């Protein structure tokens, strides 16, 4: 078997995109599940006001599911947006700046959403 580390490390070839491909699909499934769960709770259970809307996100299991979805969304969007930069932005420096900005954007939004969720 050829060594895949050090100077002999294989940096091109099959399977390098598999992890991104799979994680994008797994996170998509989790978000789809969340969408259906939330939709069911919103549509059934009477008129929707602040009380009921806040009650939906107050239960511990919904907080955990929402948290999982916040992380999933950031991960999913990172794979997608990075693909966009890799397709259209060729200069390495510009691409790096955009990728760092993307991470900051996603981590910032996720932190804010978690803060909203856990002070409820």
């Amino acid at each position, binding site marked *: 078997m050829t060594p895949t580390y050090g100077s002999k490390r294989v940096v091109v070839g099959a399977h390098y995109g598999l992890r991104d491909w799979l994680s994008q699909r797994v996170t998509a499934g989790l978000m789809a599940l969340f969408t259906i769960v939330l939709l069911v709770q919103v549509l059934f259970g009477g008129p929707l006001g602040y009380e009921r809307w806040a009650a939906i996100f107050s239960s511990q299991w919904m907080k955990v599911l929402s948290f999982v979805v916040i992380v999933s969304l950031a991960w999913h969007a990172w794979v997608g947006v990075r693909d966009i930069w890799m397709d259209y932005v060729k200069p390495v420096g510009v691409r790096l700046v955009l990728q760092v900005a993307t991470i900051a954007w996603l981590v910032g939004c996720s932190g804010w959403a978690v803060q*909203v969720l856990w002070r409820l």
Partner: protein
Amino acid sequence: MTDSTASRPRPVYRNIHVTQILGYRLPPAGIVSILHRISGALMFVLLPFVVWLFDVSLSSEISYERFTSAFSAGVGFLPGFFMKLVALALIWAYLLHFIAGLRHLWMDMSHAVSKEVGHLSALVTLGLSTLLTLALAVRLFF
């Protein structure tokens, strides 16, 4: 290299340039593909707005008032109908991205990747997302 291969002109493939986009006739699957990307990018850009809506709608009853008035009276210099238009853009993006994503998952699992099935499922994706968006637009504006 032999003479026969050197003399025969080889086909040349190039990426489409931005200026050629409108002149290109994309098949439905191609339209779904680019709209999947555009809708994803749109939601990424508007993510802080979504989290802001999540914040004001959940934090307190007073902030909930700000959430509802954002779509009737507006926010700052932005009028209410503009906020509704932004919300509708997000609704469209979510629906299309959702359905196009399910189409991907379905194709991955069923290996239904023939030209005909791809064509049909792309049309279903476009039709269903447009219909649902229109229905919710009516709900939002009237």
